[in-house]
């Protein structure tokens, strides 16, 4: 060591890095656009309709959000992983039908059907991912095919086994009450009934966020979505990660399917078509990049919350619900533009 050595050691606080305030850091988050949108929408409906902010009404809004949000968790992670799933809407119904038809036909405890439905849901996800990885086709095509096939299977098998367009009621079967308690009950908080799906939703978002930000698998999800070739080259198991993501979507579909089944005890076999777009919209509004590699689970949750607020808010404001889809489209466009602007500005700073 000489005294002429003037080079400073590894800089921990570099003078070229301007201290970023917490506010600026917040602006760099993927879900910031959605958060701003959610606040604006909340204030708007609170002003337009006084009932909107009442606890009971708000619990309903949260319930509506959760039925989208549960799926949006899986779909967001999948989108960050660079893929797309169009079969999610009908996969929820497939799961519910599997559980009810199986336990009804074989007169088993409904929990057996619930278990089988989980296997089937994960299996659908696995098959989606496996075909995608084997054929290297775009996920749009592969899952569009699964979507059509599942739609047909739902209708065809329900008629073949049950002889109708809806599954037979299973409300007096063994295990129904305990299953309903798990998947479709309400929790009373300070005099307000909050549906259990809200808590499942929050738990899923928390787990997904932890996985994404703090585990190796999360690192891999970002990597396979950002640049699958680079990820493969440094030893990331790209195939396993992507197939796992599709199975994660399957898991979410199972939870929502079970909720649908035990909330109403019967399932319409033709339902679910079109819902896949709502989940994708929630993820996109929440700041997940369609091309992959960027986004967050919380963003997807905020996207679902925006959806829930608009859906119920229109009713509370006593407008004609016919307008809902128009608002949804407008919101998707605005949220995406806001995301784009915010992201660019945050990157410049």
């Amino acid at each position, binding site marked *: 060591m000489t005294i002429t050595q003037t080079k400073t050691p590894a800089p921990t606080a570099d003078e070229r890095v301007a201290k970023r305030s917490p506010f600026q850091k917040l602006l760099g988050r993927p879900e910031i656009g959605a958060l701003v949108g959610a606040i604006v929408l909340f204030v708007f409906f609170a002003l337009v309709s006084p009932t909107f902010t009442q606890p009971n009404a708000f619990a309903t809004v949260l319930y509506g959000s959760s039925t989208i949000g549960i799926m949006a968790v899986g779909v967001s992670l999948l989108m960050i992983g660079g893929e797309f799933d169009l079969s999610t809407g009908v996969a929820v119904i497939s799961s519910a039908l599997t559980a009810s038809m199986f336990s009804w036909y074989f007169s088993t405890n409904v929990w057996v059907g619930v278990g089988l439905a989980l296997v089937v849901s994960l299996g659908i996800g696995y098959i989606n991912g496996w075909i995608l990885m084997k054929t290297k086709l775009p996920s749009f095509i592969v899952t569009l095919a699964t979507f059509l096939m599942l739609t047909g299977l739902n209708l065809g098998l329900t008629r073949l086994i049950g002889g109708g367009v809806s599954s037979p009621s299973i409300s007096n079967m063994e295990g129904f009450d305990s299953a309903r308690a798990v998947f479709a009950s309400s929790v009373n908080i300070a005099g307000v009934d909050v549906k259990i799906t809200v808590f499942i939703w929050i738990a899923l978002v928390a787990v997904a966020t*932890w996985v994404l930000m703090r585990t190796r698998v999360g690192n891999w999800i970002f990597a396979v979505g950002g640049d699958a070739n*680079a990820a493969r080259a440094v*030893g990331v198991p790209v195939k396993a990660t992507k197939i796992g993501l599709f199975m994660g979507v399957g898991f979410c579909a199972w939870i929502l399917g079970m909720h649908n089944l035990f909330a109403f005890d019967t399932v319409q076999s033709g339902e679910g078509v079109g819902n896949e777009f709502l989940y994708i919209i929630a993820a996109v509004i929440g700041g997940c990049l369609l091309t992959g590699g960027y986004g967050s689970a919380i963003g997807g949750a905020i996207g679902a919350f925006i959806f829930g607020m608009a859906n119920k808010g229109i009713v509370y404001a006593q407008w004609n619900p016919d307008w809902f889809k128009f608002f949804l489209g407008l919101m998707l466009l605005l949220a995406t533009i806001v995301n784009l602007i915010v992201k660019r500005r945050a990157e410049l700073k």
Partner: protein
Amino acid sequence: MNANEIDQQTLLQNEKDPLTHTPVHLLSLERVGKHYGNIIALSDVTMAVDNGRVTCVLGDNGAGKSTLIKIIAGLHQHDAGVLNIMGEERKFGSPRDALDAGIATVYQDLAVVPLMPIWRNFFLGSELTSGFGPFKSMDVEKMKEITLKELAAMGIDLRDVEQPIGQLSGGERQCVAIARAVYFGAKVLILDEPTAALGVKQSGVVLRYILQARDRGLGVIFITHNPHHAFPVGDRFLLLKRGKSIGYYDKKDITLDELTAQMAGGAELAELAHELEQLGGHGDIVKEVKGEVADVAQTTGKTYG
């Protein structure tokens, strides 16, 4: 046959492992070949890599350089010849296999995921974890700290490891990838045209890191089409052309001019000059090419055209 051209077999036999003094290379290829369908991408390539040595692979576009590194890196499997690691015959099924054998590759274009922060890229595929079973989580603070420290040790002065790596310059990105490979205990470092897309100054920076990696005891395979980049850092030179080896030299047996001449292909240059003249090409350019031909002829002792 040129006087400087040494038979590959004799060259190999004279090599001894610097540590064990047995004729074993850290990595060696013997008559390795690869074809895609009916297209022969590579045939009969023999080369060796040793600790603390830089083996340069030179060749023009389509010479088979990429195929060669893909075989060593485990992205493709060779279908002729032998790939030895420390004298043991191996065939890699995946990049993971190659990594486990201590072979790290820094690719020109797919070295990193641009949208991810530097520290996430640095540890991608080999993340540090703490905790047990399903509750294993990444040790984020430690990973950030190591990233900053390792990059500083390589002389890369970074601003913020949290910024997306896509915001760094091409040279800096290459350096992060090199530092990553060094940190994860690579024994063999493959660099795929690290200087191809860089300016003069940035190229110099990358060349310095190559020497630094060499001095840390790594065997380096440096792929390039620029003899001026290869010569100052290389210990051995393998020249590829149309999937075949056209020469394999130790540094003492070749000069920069000869290397350049071999790369440029004197005969082809002469042909080009001829063609340009016939087409009524610009006088200056023709003169320039002719001058080049004369230079090449002088250094290799052959006459062309």
